[in-house]
């Protein structure tokens, strides 16, 4: 793996450092907490203590208005549910570093995308692969 990474251009290797380093700079278990609270919903049987976290989030947002946003086709989205979900997910974030930690996550995510893109390009070049528009369909047989 290290040998392959060495073939990735310098900007790609820098992106890799950002991708790995940003999550570490955010603080231990901050992103892990967010991930677990995004892909798991509150349930009494859940191994995460989501019910009490949900209760805390609801208390924190108790003074906020309950709003829904009307979407196309007569559907609507519960904005308040999004707010509650984000509050639960960000519980491990440091309130004094919230903006910094959010920027770290964004930069790290962008770094990962850039690294993966460069890595693919290096792999394709090494193996003689080419990317381009699809070939036009063959003429129908008369």
């Amino acid at each position, binding site marked *: 793996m290290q040998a392959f990474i060495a073939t990735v251009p310098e900007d790609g290797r820098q992106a*890799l450092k950002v*991708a*790995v380093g*940003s*999550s570490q700079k955010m603080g231990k278990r901050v*992103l*892990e907490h*967010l*991930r677990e*609270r*995004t*892909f798991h919903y509150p349930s009494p049987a859940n191994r995460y203590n989501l019910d009490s976290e949900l209760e805390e989030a609801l208390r924190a947002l108790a003074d906020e208005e309950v709003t829904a*946003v009307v979407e196309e086709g007569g559907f609507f*989205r519960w*904005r308040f549910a*999004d*707010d509650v*979900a*984000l509050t639960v*997910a960000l519980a491990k974030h440091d309130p004094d570093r919230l903006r910094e930690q*959010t920027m770290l*996550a*964004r930069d*790290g*995510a*962008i770094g*990962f*995308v850039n690294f*993966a*893109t460069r*890595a*693919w390009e290096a792999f394709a070049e090494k193996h003689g692969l080419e990317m381009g528009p699809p070939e036009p369909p063959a003429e129908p047989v008369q």
Partner: protein
Amino acid sequence: MCIARNDVRHALTQTGHATDRDAPEYAYWIRVASSHYFEAAGALRE
């Protein structure tokens, strides 16, 4: 890695679109983008 790249990139793109439109799903895409990034960064370290 290409799977993770697609997931993270799509979530980032949708976060940007939601921000531009001040759309309610902004918070959702923030959570999804960060979560996929967490998984991607973990895979890089393994």
